[in-house]
């Protein structure tokens, strides 16, 4: 891979809890992203995926502390806190939020809110900025004159499109989309995902798609990371993960997704993810794992390369561990 657009190195996030103690929400994750690449970040609720991408932009609440490096185009943007990250916000990395339906302030016009980051980052100003906002709306399939509308005058799907248009305002290199389609019905969801893919292809935009919904990733992304309990359990091309999972969690996660064409039972994974206010002993997934064996309960698995561009954190892939037990 040529020089990556974004490299995340051993990213940790801790939350200080109100009652004392700490919650280690993201426990050291690494990933890289090439220019124009679409990357999926999958996992169940509470696995730390949203926390991880909020950390990338330095948007976590004050009770969070972050360690690790987030290197964008060779610059560690978290190195000097707010000072080093804020010039990149929206200018280089934009976001489409989980509740993107509510990404717009209800008392201000859509157009003004799209123009806001342009003027802030001096991308465009005044009439020029408004013209660009109208063009962006057109690009995502909304009539130009909607820049005069208030958010409540748009449907949910339209608001989501407008939120995407707003993300594109400063021609960012990377868009982080956090559950961008969760609140939408299936038809609108498909339209939004197609829109994201085509925009990424046309504009050479890199995309990180965060979701719990595997089919959504399948429609949009190439490389995918599966997160569990604040770590990346397995990463690689989605096809490979699907056909040849090298972590039991990945296998079980796919099995929980209904398949329209294949006759098979939809299963659920028993148990709940571990609490992260204390470090799990051994593999965090071991208590719920159907293939756990001796070392899983006590030894924390390391990330092993398990194929071309693939890594997995599971003792099953470690011949030494298997031999020892």
């Amino acid at each position, binding site marked *: 891979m040529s020089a990556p657009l974004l490299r995340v190195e051993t990213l940790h996030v801790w939350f200080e809890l109100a009652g004392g103690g700490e919650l280690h929400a993201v426990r050291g994750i690494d990933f890289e992203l090439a220019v124009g690449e679409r990357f999926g970040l999958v996992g169940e609720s509470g696995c730390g995926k949203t926390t991880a991408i909020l950390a990338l932009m330095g948007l976590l609440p004050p009770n969070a502390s972050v360690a690790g490096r987030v290197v964008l185009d060779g610059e560690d943007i978290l190195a000097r806190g707010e000072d080093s990250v804020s010039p990149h916000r929206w200018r280089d990395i934009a976001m489409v939020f989980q509740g*993107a339906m509510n990404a717009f302030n209800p008392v201000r016009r859509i157009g003004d809110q799209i123009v806001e*980051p342009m003027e802030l980052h001096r991308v465009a100003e005044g009439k020029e900025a408004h013209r660009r906002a109208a063009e962006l709306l057109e690009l995502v399939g909304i009539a130009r004159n909607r820049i005069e509308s208030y958010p409540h005058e748009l449907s949910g799907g339209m608001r989501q499109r407008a939120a995407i248009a707003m993300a594109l305002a400063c021609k960012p290199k990377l868009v982080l989309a956090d559950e961008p389609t969760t609140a939408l019905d299936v038809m609108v969801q498909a339209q939004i995902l197609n829109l994201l893919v085509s925009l990424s292809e046309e504009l050479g935009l890199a995309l990180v798609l965060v979701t719990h919904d595997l089919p959504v990733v399948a429609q949009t992304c190439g490389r995918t990371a599966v997160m569990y309990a604040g770590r990346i359990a397995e990463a690689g091309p989605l096809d490979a993960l699907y056909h040849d999972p090298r972590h039991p969690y990945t296998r079980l996660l796919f099995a929980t997704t209904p398949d329209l064409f294949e006759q098979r039972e939809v299963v659920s994974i028993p148990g709940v993810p571990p609490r992260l206010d204390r470090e799990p002993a051994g593999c965090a997934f071991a208590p719920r794992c159907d293939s756990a064996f001796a070392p899983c309960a006590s030894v924390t698995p390391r990330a092993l390369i398990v194929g071309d561009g693939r890594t997995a954190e599971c003792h099953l892939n470690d011949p030494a561990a298997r031999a020892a037990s």
Partner: protein
Amino acid sequence: MGRGDYIAKRVGFALITVLVAITLNFVLFRAIPGDAVSALRCRQCTAAFKEFQRQELGLDKSKWEQYRLYLADLAHGDLGRSLRTERSVASELWAPIRNTLPMVALGTFFSILLGVAAGVVSAWRRGTIVDRGTLYTGLGFYSMPPQWLGLLMVLYVSGWLGLPTSGVKDPILGILGDASTWDVVVDRLEHMVLPSLTLGLVLLGEYALITRSAMLETLGEDYALTARAKGLSNWAVVRRHGLRNALLPVVTLVALSLGFIIGGAITIEYVFSYPGIGLAIVEAIDKRDFPVLQGAFLLLTLSVIAFNLLADLLYFKLDPRVTT
């Protein structure tokens, strides 16, 4: 329903409320036992004199006829005559209103300005010492009975600042030589400061607490996070995305409380013997001066309705979603 209709609907609703209030004002004063004449408590009065008085006040007519006359008089701006001074109720109420309005306005202005500012800063600096300070000070003032706070002012603050504690003007001002306009204004202001401050502090606590919680709620919304992601500084998020949204509940509260304050400063005016509308009401009750009381009640009701209407219209201006 269009936004244009909204204003018409609100104004129409306010007018209907005025009519209902006027009617209730009439009914209330006829529903209480006795009437203005029996309330005179005049032992020497002969039955004939009382009858004459009743005719004079129109109390011998049927209730419907009285209601009709009441409305007709009201339409001409005639609120009746004071039983005590025989002067018209309007002129009887005018002087206290002139005293109350600037005092209340000063206190409210002060409390809105400081209360909203304190609430915003407190939310912006959530969890810091500034926030906690505002929170506890606000709670303290909010939970204090105004008359008690007034007494504290009289006991401790007035001597310290050298401010008068009662009345609305210095009785000897202008007696020893002419007082300039400047002297009169200063004298009025000096008398106004303590009651205004008392009222202002009580309201300040309330406004600061409400602004703070409204602001915190707004800053927790998705669009506030989006605004931060856009690169706006925390303060810019507060100013550009928080303030207007957080002001919505504050507007309602201020308008509602203003409506009541016009008459609700009764306890404060009593403590400071400030001859405003509140004191006039107390006096009218004391002297069984029905027409004055009725006029004052009408005035208060109208001010509540007027400020409610104002809140509705402000809401309309602040929030594009408002259409009904």
